[in-house]
């Protein structure tokens, strides 16, 4: 018993102050990418060719980067002859609409809160059923980590529950494999309305590295309507938490509430 108390003393208090304080991310962390199109040589398509998921397109309107498809890898950065692409350390990536994730020079339109009625229902208590539909256990692991003492999801009234019937919504990972499609649909149907759906990770948004494989369906919104998209491969736990809090109106658009 004494050992347990001593260990408790040693372990200390570990819950981060986010969203009140801004947490530090590692210096090499790859958050929101920015492209300086003024550096792009005329006709250069090196980044388009290098991108493993065709997240970058160039046409007459310029270069567009789809954060929903982005794996946050370094292939485009390395391919660029002019160092026009760089990752910032901004971990805030979640958006309400799929098209908001496609950047064309402008800054990312972060997720807006649910409407008033939904916020009244879920703002202080949101129960989610997680469904992995082909996820590699990367997104799953970083969703799981939100329940540890570090992020302590419970303090926001958000909880992962065992049954869709006890849930207010689904948190989906994976590209939705053909073999999970029916199970996902059934889980969605089992959640009582009104409900929210959150797609976490490049796979659940657009298929990730598996995009256009016939064995999968290019993401959750092929099967169910999605209310929140959280990009990343996998998204950092802070990115997921930030997205959830924005959806519930617990953060102001753009910056955390003081």
């Amino acid at each position, binding site marked *: 018993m004494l050992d347990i108390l001593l260990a408790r003393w040693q372990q200390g208090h570990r819950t981060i102050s986010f969203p009140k304080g801004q947490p530090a991310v590692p210096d090499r962390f790859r958050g929101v990418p920015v492209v300086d199109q003024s550096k792009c040589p005329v006709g250069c398509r090196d980044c388009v060719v290098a991108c493993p*998921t065709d997240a970058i397109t160039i046409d007459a309107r310029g270069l567009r980067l789809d954060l929903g498809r982005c794996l946050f890898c370094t292939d485009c950065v390395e391919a660029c002859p002019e160092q026009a692409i760089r990752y910032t350390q901004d971990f805030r990536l979640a958006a309400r609409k799929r098209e908001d994730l496609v950047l064309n020079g402008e800054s990312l339109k972060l997720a807006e809160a649910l409407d008033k009625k939904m916020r009244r229902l879920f703002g202080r208590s949101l129960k989610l059923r997680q469904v992995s539909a082909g996820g590699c256990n990367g997104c799953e692991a970083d969703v799981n980590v939100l329940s540890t003492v570090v992020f302590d999801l419970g303090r926001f009234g958000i909880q992962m529950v065992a049954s869709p019937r006890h849930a207010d919504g689904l948190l989906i990972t994976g590209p939705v494999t053909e*073999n999970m499609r029916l199970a996902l649909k059934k889980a969605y149907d089992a959640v009582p309305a009104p409900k929210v759906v959150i797609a976490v990770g490049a796979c659940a948004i657009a298929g990730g*590295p598996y995009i256009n494989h016939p064995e999968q369906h290019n993401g959750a919104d092929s099967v169910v309507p999605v209310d929140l998209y959280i990009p990343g491969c996998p998204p950092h736990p802070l990115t997921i938490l930030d997205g959830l809090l924005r959806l519930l109106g617990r953060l102001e658009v753009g910056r955390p509430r003081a």
Partner: protein
Amino acid sequence: MSAAPQLATLRNGVARARREIPDLDWPQFRSAILDGVAGGAYVTAMFGHMPNVDDVVEIYVVLADREGGQLHGAKTRVCGDVFPSLTPECPQVHLFEREIAEQFGLRPEGHPWLKPVRFVKSQRAGHDAWGRSTSEQPLIGVMNFYRVEGEEVHEVAVGPIHAGVIEPGHFRFQCHGEHVFHLEISLGYQHRGVERALVGGPDKRTIHYMETLAGDTTIGHATAYCQVVEALAGCKPPARAQVLRGVALELERLANHTGDLGALAGDVGFLPTSSYCGRLRGDFLNMTARLCGSRFGRGLVRPGGVAFDADGTRTEELLKSLQTAMSDVTSAVGLLWDSSSVMSRFEDTGKVSLEVCEELGLVGPAARACGAEGDIRNDFPLGIYRFSHIPVSTANTGDVFARAYVRWLEIQRSADFVREQLQMLAGGTTLTTPGELAADSFVVSLVEGWRGKICHVAMTDERRRITRYKVIDPSFHNWMGLAMALRNQQISDFPLCNKSFNLSYCGHDL
């Protein structure tokens, strides 16, 4: 009896010409496997390959002989729709044969447990091992499940979606009250078509498939793939890169083993260790992120070396973080062994005997917990492990306690290794560019991932492209081990037993 067949001798991470893999007739092939296994070798890989779209399927086998640190390879050709199953005499191949049956519509005659593996269409149009239509995708989970009948015997079906934040799979328990007679595990829900997509590569997506084969084993699978490319391109990664790969692989082990010990504590309701280890797992992941920006090591391991270097201050910081984390892990994990309430739940639960472990060819900590001594880092070392030795950690009771304790031993040894390597990090570059792959070649690459033996086998064609890429995640060997561990247990012990194996679904389903 045919004469002892000559097998090709292979080494981990060394390419051979495909024509050097002997083409044996069936009796020779059969006795090569049976004699090899009787002599102590393990079947590391066994897979089909259809060189042309005709009726002939080649079956390749790779045996791993720990004693000599050698691998042995051979192939045979199967004409028609059946081949005699080796499973009754050599249970290790049970799932390999089921996979061949499913992928190529070849029926292993006499297989005692012939069921689909991933519920995918046969690659040989018009040939299905179960006589199903080959024009349609088979329905997942539609198969004959094992069934115990009798008064008050009941069946409990769980999944594909489970109660926690975890990947999907279907489990069926045959029970009498709380007592489990048998657990059948039916997977395939995570199938994403990785092996099919690798054919014709390498291309710009290949490394990303590798990093997401099993996302919690990013470093393990990426390293296995890079060893394949480097072997085929005749490229040697710089010494500094080899060290950083080893450091990353051990950090992956540290994170996952620590997380598993926390989860095991959680499953027996022991909250202190559960809560501390949950946090500490993240501390190890953050060390990997310090190295390359990603908690899972995405972007770090690349053919030819590693894409991120550890400069002086970074190394210092990593060493400091390691020391702090290990001090906390030591205190958190120590509580487990001193708490009788934990030990009474861990001990004698989910036992697997050494005999069953060897018959099924289990790998990794699950096998070492039964007293088996296999560890790729020791038996088939490559990279930094050729120069720096990690002692093999074993236990002998084969229960949940043993699987937990082996993890704790490995945590300590991995931490020592990381410390040692970071303290004497070799200078020089971290990345070279591998050239073209060799044509018509065959290579086996083995890595001891945190779950156990990761095996990748690749073959190139005359155009230097990949014509077959076989991935064998350690989970492929170990799922049947979990089923065996559940026999004669309480159904309420399933979460504990399951977590003590902590196997990958997508690593199995590919």
